[in-house]
C-alpha cells in the first residue's frame, strides 16, 4: 500500500480524497495555486505545495509542476480527482514515465476512451449501440456544415477532450453553426487545453443513465449499478440519483453487462463510468466513458456500501477486487444535489467572493461533501461547484423529502448559490413522479424567477439588521466579519462564569 499520495485537485473533491487517505493511514499532499492558500484542502492535507499562479493553466493544469511537487514531497501516487488533469493521457503517461502511480486508468486506455471518436469506433465494432455522428475532427467549417447536413439538425457540438458540459452546444439552425462552433472551441480550449470539437445527432428528451464500473489490474470487472443524471442545466448535471425510475431488473442487467464490455474492450482499469442515453422506448446508446471518479459518485457509495475512493487507491496499489458481481446489491435510494456558486434568479451568473457564513445541513442520512467554510473566498478562476448534498433513505419518496429538508437547513451567506433552485426542482410534481429527462430544466424552469420576496420577511431582515447594529453601537459586539469557527464551545455554551454554579 502507498504511504503518501499527492492530490492534484482543489475544492470538495480534494477534501473527499484527503479524507479517504486519512482513513487508510496514507499521508496526503495537497497542491494549490496562489489564490488557494487558505482553501480547505490545503488546511486538511498533511503537506501542501504551491504550484503557481491562479489561472489553472499555470497551476492545476501544469503537468511539470505537479510532477515536480510529487517528487519533492516523496509521493508514490497521484490522485487527479475530476476535471483538470483527470482525463489527460499525457499526464498519465508522464506519471508512468516518472514511476509515479496515476490513480486512474492506464494511459493507453485513457487515451482511447478520452478520444471520443476513436472510442465510438471501437464500441461500434464491439457491437455496442451508438448515436449517429462524425467519425473524425474536421479541418474547416465546410466539413462541419456537410456533416451537420448529413446527420440532420438538431446537432450537438461536443468537446473531444472532455465532458462536464464545457464546449457543448446544441445547434437547431444551420445559421448558428459557425458562432456556436467558435464558442465551443474556445470553451474546450480553456477547460481542457484542446479545442477539438465534433458533431453528433441530438436525441431529444432522453434520460441520462450511467453505470459505475470498477476494474482491477488483473481483468476482474464489476459494475455498481446505475446513476440517473437527467436533471441538467447547460448540459451540466445538477441532480443525480440511484436507482433510476426508468430501469427494471432486466434492462439494468443488460446495460450493466454492456458497460462491463465497454471497459473490457478498452483495456480499462480502476474506476470509470460508462454513460448512456436511454430514449423513451428504452433503447440505450453508448455516449462515452468518464475515465475518472465522478462528481456524483456518492449516490453509488450510499446505496452499494462500497467506498469508491478507497477502491481506486486499492486497485492502483495492485490489489485484486475483493468482491464479485453477484455480491453487489442496491439498497434504498440516494439523491445528490450539486451546490454551485451561481445566481439562479439572474441567469445563473457565476458568483465569486467571500462566504461570510456557512451552516451545513445535518441529520440522519445526510452527507455533505464540502469545499468551503465560513470566511473563505471563492475565486473566479475555477469551476463554480462549492459542495454536494447527498441523502440516503429507504425509498425515493423519503429521499426527496429528506433532501428538501436538508436544503431548508442549509445557509450560505455572502455569495449566491443554487440552493433555493434545487429545492424547487426536487419539489416539482414531475420530478416526484420520476418523469425526468435531460430537457426537464428547460421544460419546467426556463423562465424561473425565484420566489417573490415577502413584505414580512423584508421587515424581519430589517429588524435583524437594526438589532445587529444596535448591539454593535452599545456593546461593541456584533456579528462582525465572518466567523471562521461557529461550533466553538465558547460560542455555543452561552453565558457562564467560572465557579458560577456554586
Amino acid at each position, binding site marked *: 500500500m502507498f504511504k503518501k499520495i499527492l492530490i492534484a485537485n482543489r475544492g470538495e473533491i480534494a477534501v473527499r480524497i484527503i479524507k479517504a487517505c486519512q482513513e487508510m493511514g496514507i499521508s496526503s499532499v495537497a497542491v494549490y495555486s496562489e489564490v488557494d492558500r487558505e482553501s480547505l484542502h490545503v488546511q486538511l492535507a498533511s503537506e501542501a505545495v504551491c504550484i503557481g499562479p491562479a489561472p489553472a493553466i499555470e497551476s492545476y493544469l501544469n503537468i511539470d509542476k505537479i510532477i515536480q511537487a510529487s517528487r519533492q514531497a516523496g509521493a508514490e501516487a497521484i490522485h487527479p480527482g475530476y476535471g483538470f488533469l483527470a482525463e489527460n493521457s499525457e499526464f498519465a503517461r508522464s506519471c508512468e514515465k516518472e514511476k509515479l502511480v496515476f490513480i486512474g486508468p492506464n494511459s493507453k486506455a485513457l487515451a482511447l476512451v478520452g478520444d471520443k471518436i476513436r472510442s465510438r469506433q471501437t464500441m461500434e465494432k464491439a457491437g455496442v449501440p451508438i448515436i449517429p455522428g462524425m467519425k473524425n475532427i474536421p479541418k474547416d467549417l465546410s466539413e462541419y456544415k456537410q456533416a451537420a447536413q448529413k446527420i440532420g439538425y438538431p446537432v450537438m457540438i461536443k468537446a473531444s477532450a472532455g465532458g462536464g458540459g464545457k464546449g457543448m452546444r446544441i445547434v437547431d439552425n444551420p445559421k448558428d453553426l459557425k458562432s456556436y462552433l467558435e464558442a465551443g472551441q474556445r470553451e474546450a480550449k480553456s477547460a481542457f487545453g484542446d479545442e477539438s470539437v465534433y458533431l453528433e445527432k441530438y436525441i431529444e428528451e432522453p434520460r441520462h443513465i450511467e453505470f459505475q464500473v470498477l476494474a482491477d489490474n488483473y481483468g476482474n470487472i464489476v459494475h455498481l449499478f446505475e446513476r440517473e443524471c437527467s436533471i441538467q442545466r447547460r448540459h451540466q448535471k445538477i441532480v443525480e440519483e440511484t436507482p433510476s425510475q426508468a430501469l427494471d431488473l432486466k434492462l439494468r442487467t443488460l446495460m450493466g453487462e454492456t458497460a462491463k464490455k465497454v471497459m473490457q474492450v478498452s483495456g480499462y482499469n480502476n474506476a470509470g463510468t460508462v454513460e448512456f442515453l436511454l430514449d423513451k422506448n428504452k433503447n440505450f446508446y453508448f455516449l462515452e466513458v468518464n475515465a475518472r471518479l465522478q462528481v456524483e459518485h456518492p449516490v453509488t457509495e450510499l446505496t452499494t456500501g462500497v467506498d469508491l475512493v478507497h477502491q481506486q487507491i486499492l486497485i492502483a496499489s495492485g490489489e485484486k477486487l475483493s468482491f464479485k458481481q453477484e455480491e453487489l446489491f442496491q439498497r434504498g435510494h440516494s439523491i445528490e444535489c450539486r451546490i454551485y456558486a451561481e445566481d439562479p434568479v439572474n441567469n445563473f451568473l457565476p458568483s465569486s467572493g467571500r462566504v461570510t457564513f456557512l451552516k451545513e445541513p445535518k441529520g440522519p442520512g445526510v452527507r455533505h461533501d464540502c469545499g468551503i467554510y465560513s470566511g473563505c473566498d471563492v475565486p473566479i478562476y475555477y469551476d463554480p461547484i462549492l459542495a454536494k448534498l447527498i441523502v440516503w433513505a429507504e425509498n425515493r419518496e423519503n429521499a426527496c423529502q429528506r433532501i428538501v429538508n436538508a436544503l431548508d437547513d442549509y445557509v450560505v451567506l*455572502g455569495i449566491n448559490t443554487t440552493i433555493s433552485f434545487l429545492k424547487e426542482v426536487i419539489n416539482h410534481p414531475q420530478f416526484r413522479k420520476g418523469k425526468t429527462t435531460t430537457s426537464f430544466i428547460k421544460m419546467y424552469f426556463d423562465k424561473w424567477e425565484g420566489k417573490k420576496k415577502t413584505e414580512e420577511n423584508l421587515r424581519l431582515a430589517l429588524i435583524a439588521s437594526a438589532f445587529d447594529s444596535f448591539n454593535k453601537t452599545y456593546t461593541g459586539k456584533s*456579528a462582525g466579519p465572518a466567523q471562521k469557527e461557529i461550533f466553538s464551545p465558547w460560542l455555543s455554551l452561552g453565558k457562564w462564569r467560572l465557579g458560577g454554579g456554586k
Partner: protein
Amino acid sequence: MEYEFLVNSVLHKISLEKKENIFLVSDGKKTFKADICFISPNVISILIEGRSHKVYLARDKDKMYISLEGEQFIVQEPLESGESFQKSEEKSQEHELMIKAPMPGKVIKINVSEKENVRKNQTLAIVEAMKMENEIKSSIEGYVKKILVSAGDLVDSENPLMELVKKRGVP
C-alpha cells in the same frame, strides 16, 4: 434608535427602542413589540406575537447578508455623505447607457468596435468566470460610443465595459 438601510437601492427606515427585555419596533407604518436575541454571532432569534423567526446574518464591510425562511437579502448601511442612491445608469444622460460587468471575471472577447451600430440583444462582449462564458448583450438599439476594456482584462462586478448611445426615436 433610528436606523436607515438600503435594500436593492431602496431606502428603508426602522427604529428600535429597548424596553426592559423587549424591543419596541417601528417601521413608520406600525409599532409592535419584539423579543430579539442572539443565539450565536450569526443567528438571531425574533419572537413577534408568539411567532418564532430564525434569521441568519453576516456582515462584510458595509453589507449585511441575511437569510430567513430560504429568502436572501443584502442590507446595506447608507454612506454618510448622503449621496444619491440612484443607479448610475439612470444618472447618466437619458440617451446614453453604460454597459457593466454583471459579475467578476475576465474579458474574453470584445465583439464590437467604437462607432459601430448595435441591435437590441446583439452580443457586445464575452466575459468568462468560473470556466463559463457569459455573453453581454445590448439592451438597446444604438451605437458604441466608447469601449473601456479590452480582451484579457480582469473586471470586477459593476465595472464599466462600454458606453452605448441610444438611437433616437427608438424606445
